[in-house]
């Protein structure tokens, strides 16, 4: 096991800068998730840690060693790929034992390590099968087994669950998390799915357009997003945003309605600002309630455990999630009351405004 230190990493393909100076510290045994939309550079960063991409500038350390020019095989890492990348001509056992075979590990030890890893992943009955004879979930488990057998200092996962169906994804998510809790190997995991990030990570690195937007624990990112991008990216359904102008004690919307703020924002009155409120922090109150946002119900989506309501209000649609079962009909006039102490405020540049 080892810590990983990424210092001012840059990556360009020709004149196109993909990663524009990223700093991340990953502690020994930590489960860190790089999350962001497509094209944000998260997979490129992971591949740079793996040694599969050259580093244009900056420094990556695994443990005390700078690995910029160390070939992948000498970095003591193991990687699990999105499409599994199993060797199609080898059995499950051979796939898992391949790295040990290359190292010249004695047969007895090789067999023991493969058996142990297979047992921990429930792969023992599948050891003689070929990848084509396995389901997607089983293949992904073999890919993980191949990584575990190597007992590396760092595990790298590149969107490992993207090819699985929703149910299997939830199951594998729990398995990977349980695996990490058992092995305590430093793990860097890339995903574009913020639910995966929230549920699995010790620490999330939110990336966007080649830079790091915020690094923090899942709930820290959820409760105190550093900027409007993180606020909109983390959380499902996404946070609602309303643009307006700050007044003393509130935010005035273009229609003249004033939304109250709990606290004193560190921004002068008259400044343009964006009011952010999560769907579960909007309460549906009777139409005409003072201080609430007038709206009209557009869509009601019951999921069983909760209900998502999409309502038309000034400035666009607002999403509300309520735990209770509601008897609302499309077209019905309602009012939406934000929970003032749960509101976020962002300045014109999208940065979080302190004081709330």
């Amino acid at each position, binding site marked *: 096991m080892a810590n990983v230190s990424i210092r001012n990493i840059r990556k360009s393909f020709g004149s196109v800068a993909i990663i524009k100076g990223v700093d991340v510290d990953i502690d020994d045994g930590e489960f860190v998730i790089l999350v962001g939309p497509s094209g944000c550079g998260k997979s490129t960063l992971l591949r740079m840690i*793996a*040694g*599969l991409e050259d580093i244009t500038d900056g420094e990556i350390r695994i443990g005390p060693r700078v690995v910029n020019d160390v*070939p*992948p*095989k000498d970095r003591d*890492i*193991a*990687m699990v*790929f*999105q*499409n599994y*990348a*199993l*060797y*199609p*001509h080898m059995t499950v056992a051979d796939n898992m034992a*391949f*790295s040990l075979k*290359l*190292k010249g590990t004695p047969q007895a030890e090789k067999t023991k390590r493969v058996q142990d890893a297979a047992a921990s992943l429930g792969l023992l009955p599948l050891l003689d099968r070929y990848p*084509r004879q396995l389901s997607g979930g089983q293949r992904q488990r073999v890919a993980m087994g*191949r990584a575990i057998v*190597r007992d590396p200092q760092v595990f790298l996962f590149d969107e490992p669950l993207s090819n699985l169906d929703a149910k299997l994804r939830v199951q594998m998510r729990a398995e990977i998390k349980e695996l990490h809790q058992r092995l305590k190997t430093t793990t860097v995991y890339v995903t574009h799915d913020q639910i995966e990030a929230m549920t699995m990570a010790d620490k999330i690195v939110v990336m966007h357009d080649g830079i790091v937007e915020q690094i923090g624990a899942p709930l820290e990112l959820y409760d105190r997003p550093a900027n409007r991008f993180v606020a909109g990216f983390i959380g499902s359904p996404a946070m609602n945003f309303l643009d307006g102008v700050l007044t003393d004690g509130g935010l005035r919307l273009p229609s003249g309605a004033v939304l109250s703020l709990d606290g004193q924002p560190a921004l002068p009155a008259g400044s343009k600002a964006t009011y952010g409120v999560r769907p579960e922090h909007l309460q549906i109150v009777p139409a005409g309630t003072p201080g609430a946002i007038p709206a009209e119900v557009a869509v009601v989506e019951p999921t069983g455990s909760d209900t998502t309501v999409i309502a038309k209000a000034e400035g666009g649609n607002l999403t509300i999630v309520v735990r209770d079962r509601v008897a609302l009909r499309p077209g019905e006039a309602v009012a939406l009351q934000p929970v003032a102490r749960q509101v976020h405020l962002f300045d014109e540049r999208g940065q979080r405004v302190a004081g709330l």
Partner: protein
Amino acid sequence: MPVSPKQARTLKHRSWVAFLVIPPIVFMSLFVVYPILSAFAYAFYEWRGLARGEFVGLANFKEVLIGPIMGPVVWNAFLHNVYALVALMIIQNGGGFFLAWLLYKEPFGFRFHRVAVFVPVVLSTIIVGFLWKLFLNPNFGIVNQALFTVGLDSLAKPWLGDASTALGALILANAWHFVGFPTLVYLAGMQRIPSEIIEAARLDGTSEWQLLKNVIWPLVAPSTTILFTLLFIGAFNWFEIPYVMVGLDGSPYGTTDVLGLVFYRTAFGNQSASIQNFGQGSALATLLFLFIVVFASMLTLWLRRREIQF
């Protein structure tokens, strides 16, 4: 009886299928099946020039295989075909594999080389044979000229006139001519391998050689089987290059004689001895055809079993 619309549609469909299928069947029957069957039938008769004589049963086959005159010639030629097959498997297909590997790694100018390596394949075999005959000319060919230039005069020899080098020279000329084909097939096979598999192998700790041996080679192996099948057919039908470069007699002293030349000489005669035996020629052609069909079919069946799914 009235025809229902459904029956009318079926009839129309069948007429259309017949219209499409019958012409090629007639064409194939006339120009492929009939000549093959004729050749097969010719082999059972005695021939005087182009005049068919008595039915002789398997006598022609016997003469071709174990007859005192034809037998040794045929087996000598067969041996040369086997040499060519083995040598071309190594040089042409093996060389193609390594060329494909080099191109796969996308070295500087790989696009140019990718085209360059395939250009000889599209040249006419007659042109290639003539070109190599010039290259190997003992007096002014560039091979000997190059040896003279670098001071290796002792190595210069009449490549096509020397019994020890003639067959090898033909094999090399053939390999030069066709190496682009296996290269292209292997390259396509390599490019089909998902890049993650190669990356996973690199992370697993493979050296370049181990990657080639343990990952790339097994994954492109099905290409080898089809290439081997084609080479097998080509090697036993080998005719043009030997004919252009060393003539119908497989000179010097039959050291480059192959079954294609023997067949041609036997069936159609040659300039030096206008002896012609259509029956024995047909018998040889039939045996060669059966030999190729049986082995090529077996290889194809084997190939199907070895296909790899990614």
